[in-house]
């Protein structure tokens, strides 16, 4: 099995290397290779999961005296689940990309980037220690950078890629310090060894959580994710919805033993705030991908909150209580990966069909033009808003159940967010699919080829079935057994009631129209929501442009004028003046020298005579 794990890690690396070296200009071959590798990854991931036995292995990478870093694999049910998600969604996105990116002149680079991403993501999943996780964490950030930057001729895409990388670096700054602190406190960063023995310190999990805040785009580092939608849509589906952004939650689950109640409280509130904030932002968006991006943020907030809720009431963080958080978070991560990837690919299909129109107010009537996309997208919408018997229903219930048990304030916020989620998703759905086409592009919309519809169907099936944990047989039992189960119908009833409120409100308010109904009926509220969305970007822009840039300019001024200019050149000037003075004394006239000589003699005499 170890060989399988190594193979699944190295296959995409080999693919990326081959594409980078030989297939940069052979787009078709690169696409074929990367897709074949993605299929192999999915297959091996499932074989590994079915085999199921946990195992681990590692080898030393570098040694500094008594300190050593190793690269290793830790495979258990948690890793198996994540690996399967990455494999299956990865395969769907690769296949979808075959059609979606067919006419792109830089297909080679695109598929090479996807392969690097698969490699780095699988590295995070399999890593057996925090340093190795950090290495792949950075690589995943790099592949995200290159893929967002795919259309680098567009200034906005280049800016978005840079922003994503730097904001993630801010989070990684804390992550790295957390790893170093963890090493010094515990003497190891190996996940298994940490599980056996570790010191409780609130600082360490919080520093490590910074990494998750960056990668999983939680407040206040969420700003990069909406901008990252500048990347090709399949990339958004794979990286910025289903897998990479979920890596933060996966990492938290990996280090759950290190958590302390205080740390969990912070994590819980960050997740809750993100869930609410992003849902509010999603309401005013006009771009189909931006709506989905904010929805992703919101759902990631649910997962983080679920993790934090796991044991906030525990006296001492114990594995049994914590596990409830892990179970709920990973469950929602799984269902979300499928239905959100489905909706992103669906939006890709819509964008492709509408000739790259992304404004939902210019769409409409796609129900008839793109029936398959319509049906699958509808399943995705129903799954995310929590319609009974679809995947999202079960996983969201598990989270609401945890919230109700542990913290009523959080429950209230998450419950309210359920209303918002139904509201903005139904709004999107009405505007895109119902009514009549409102633009030239949408009037001529058409369904993509099989490579684009097949992944949609597969993901739609999964978006229904992924919620039934009994269907998995014994796969991932280690994770599923942790999911909290409620008794009775209280939570489903509350959840559905809330969902229906949001759904009805959207149904009443929005008709397929070219203008935003909310903006017309309640411009104040609409404006406030828009301002709320812009607030963070404004704050950061202010910091970058007005604080950091000016501070750097000031330093530059000090450097050039004071340090290089006044002190260094001034020093040189002083020496020069002295030289000028000395030169002035050398006039070349014998008379002058005789006078100097006499003056010298007089001084010597005076000195000898004791005048001084």
């Amino acid at each position, binding site marked *: 099995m170890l060989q399988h794990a190594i193979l699944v890690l190295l296959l995409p690396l080999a693919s990326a290397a081959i594409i980078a070296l030989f297939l940069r200009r052979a787009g078709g071959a690169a696409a074929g290779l990367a897709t074949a590798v993605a299929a192999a990854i999915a297959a091996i991931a499932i074989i590994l999961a079915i085999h199921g036995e946990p195992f681990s292995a590692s080898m030393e990478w570098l040694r*500094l005296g008594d*300190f050593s870093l190793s690269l290793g694999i830790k495979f258990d049910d948690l890793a198996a689940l994540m690996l399967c998600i990455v494999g299956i969604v990865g395969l769907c996105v690769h296949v979808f990309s075959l059609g979606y990116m067919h006419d792109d002149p830089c297909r080679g680079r695109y598929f090479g980037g996807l392969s690097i991403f698969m490699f780095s993501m699988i590295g995070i999943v399999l890593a057996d220690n925090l*340093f190795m996780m950090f290495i792949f964490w950075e*690589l995943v950030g790099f592949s995200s950078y290159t893929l967002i930057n795919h259309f680098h001729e567009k200034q906005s895409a280049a800016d978005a890629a840079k922003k994503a990388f*730097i904001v993630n670096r801010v989070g990684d700054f804390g992550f790295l310090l957390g790893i170093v602190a963890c090493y010094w406190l515990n003497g190891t960063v190996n996940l298994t060894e940490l599980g056996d023995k570790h010191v409780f310190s609130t600082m360490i999990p919080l520093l490590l959580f910074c990494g998750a805040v960056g990668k999983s785009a939680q407040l206040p580092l969420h700003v990069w994710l909406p901008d990252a939608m500048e990347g090709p849509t399949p990339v958004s589906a794979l990286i910025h919805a289903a897998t990479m952004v979920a890596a933060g939650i996966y990492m938290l689950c990996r280090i759950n033993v290190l958590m302390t109640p205080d740390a969990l409280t912070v994590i819980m509130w960050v997740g809750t705030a993100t869930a609410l904030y992003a849902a509010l932002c999603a309401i005013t968006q006009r771009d189909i991908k931006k709506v989905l991006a904010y929805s992703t943020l919101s759902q990631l907030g649910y997962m983080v909150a679920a993790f934090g809720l796991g044991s906030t009431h525990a006296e001492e963080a114990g594995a049994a209580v914590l596990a409830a958080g892990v179970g709920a978070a990973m469950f929602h991560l799984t269902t979300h990966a499928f239905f959100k990837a489905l909706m992103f690919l669906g939006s890709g299909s819509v964008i492709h069909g509408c000739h790259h129109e992304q404004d939902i107010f210019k769409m409409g009537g796609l129900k008839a033009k793109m029936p398959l996309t319509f049906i699958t997208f509808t399943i995705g919408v129903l799954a995310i808003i929590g319609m009974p018997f679809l995947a999202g229903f079960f996983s969201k219930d598990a989270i609401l159940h945890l919230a109700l048990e542990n913290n009523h304030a959080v429950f209230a916020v998450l419950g309210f967010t359920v209303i918002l989620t139904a509201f903005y998703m139904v709004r999107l759905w009405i505007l895109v699919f119902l009514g009549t086409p409102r633009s030239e592009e949408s009037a001529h919309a058409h369904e993509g080829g099989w490579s684009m519809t097949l992944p949609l169907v597969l993901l739609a099936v999964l978006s229904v079935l992924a919620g039934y944990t009994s269907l998995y047989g014994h796969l991932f039992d280690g994770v599923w057994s942790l999911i909290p189960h409620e008794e009775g119908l209280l939570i489903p009833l509350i959840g559905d009631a809330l969902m229906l409120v949001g759904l009805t409100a959207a149904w009443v308010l929005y008709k397929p129209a070219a203008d935003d109904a909310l903006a017309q009926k309640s411009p104040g509220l609409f404006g406030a929501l828009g301002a709320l969305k812009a607030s963070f970007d404004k704050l950061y822009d202010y910091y970058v442009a007005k604080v950091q*840039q000016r501070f750097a*300019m000031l330093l530059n001024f000090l450097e050039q004028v004071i340090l290089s200019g006044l002190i260094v050149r001034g020093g040189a000037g002083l020496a020069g003046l002295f030289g000028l003075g000395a030169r002035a004394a050398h006039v070349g006239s014998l008379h002058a020298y005789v006078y100097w000589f006499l003056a010298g003699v007089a001084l010597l005499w005076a000195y000898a005579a004791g005048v001084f």
Partner: protein
Amino acid sequence: MNLLPWTIYLSFAGALLALVAGARSAAAARGIALVTALASWGVVLVAATGFTPAPKMVTLVDAPWIESLGIHYHLAADGISLVLLVLTGLAATAGVLFSWNIKERTGEFFAYFLTLIGGVYGVFLSADAFLFFVFYEIAIVPKYFLIANWGSTNREYGAMKLVLYSFAGSALVLAALLWIYAAGGASGFGLGELTAAAATLGRPEQLAVFALLFLGFAVLAGMFPFHTWAPTGHVAAPTAVSMLLAGVVMKLGAYGCLRVALPLVPDALAFWQPAILALAVIGIVYAGLIALVQDDFKFVIGYSSVSHMGFVLLGLGAGNVRAASGAVLQMFSHGVIAGLLFAVVGRMVYERTHTRKLADLRQLPLHKLLPFAAVVFVIAGLASMGLPGFSGFPAELAILIGAWQTSPFWALGAALGVLVAAAFTLRAIQVSFFGKDDRDPVAADAHHHYEPISVPEKAGAFLLIAASLVVGLKPDLLFDWITPALQSPAFQAVLKGGTP
């Protein structure tokens, strides 16, 4: 191992030959330079294969030189010197490749170039402080002529500033060495003899001597606030000389700190440590922020160099084996990566576009005009940001881990520097190469046909990228040489806070 002194002799002989042959044929001078650089690098690599890491310096040559003063021609090497010798060979070879297009007085250029290299090899091999000093001076002088004759922007000023700083630094070093020699009554200039002599000095004297030595060397390593020679010098210098300046000459200073300053007065580090750590970290962040707002492409790289050298000083100042090993690895890593960055900016871009202003470069679709240069610069930029897989990552990681042990506060400051590095590197990548699309009609007008990237340039780029990757993927290759060397009694006295 015993072949190692030949690196020095070969370089000096090559310099002479290049001078003679260059008078007749530039091609001959180039060929001689390349063969010399490769041969001396080959000597190092051959010696490295037979090298067994040990906690001591292996003496290669030890002959009396000026007997009345106890000065010896004493060459020796350990794992640390070996790492830097490998770097020197690499930088020299890449430097020759990137100077392939020097047309003016080619022979003289390579004569100075190889003299500098010979001096650098000499410094890394010296076990006698006086000899060390002599080689150190030999390495400084050719820099002046190289920059003043073949340089570009403001070259006289840059050359003068650089040389004055270097001489000022070495004056401090010489003063300190003579002080120890005279006041401590040393029998010679061997590092061991000087250490014994320094131990007899009073505490205030020891502290002062250490300060002079460390400061004197740190000037050449680009320590804040004595770094301003570096960006100006880099900008003024011809490409290959920028590569050597950042690649090896700055390492002379850092190496001097490690090999001479720290062990001579082992218990002074504890006293000066707060100051060293503070200046190192301030330098990292300060230079990084300044790099963020530069408008000259080469100044961006120049300040990034200062920022990265701050990590070396931090590692040396932290005073433990992890940080010090990281510092040595960072010397290697920075030498390779900065060399690559300067090669792209100076040779591949500037000599074709004749502008280094970022505002001008962003008007050009450079990634389309010079795709190879764009790819190399992106790779070098990633390496410079400390992305895993490249040599900077294990180096900076080891330094951070070690520095955390000494002072979490300064480790935090240094980590902030990593963040700034990402910001200025990405800005440089975006503005320089990916500024504009050539579908834009204005840019299409400016669609120059640049001379394609030549074979020597490609070879040099591959060489440096490969070095950074190999060390980044398998850092133990070098750590296995470095850490045992740091177990020697001389270093242990420093790294354990003065108790031998």
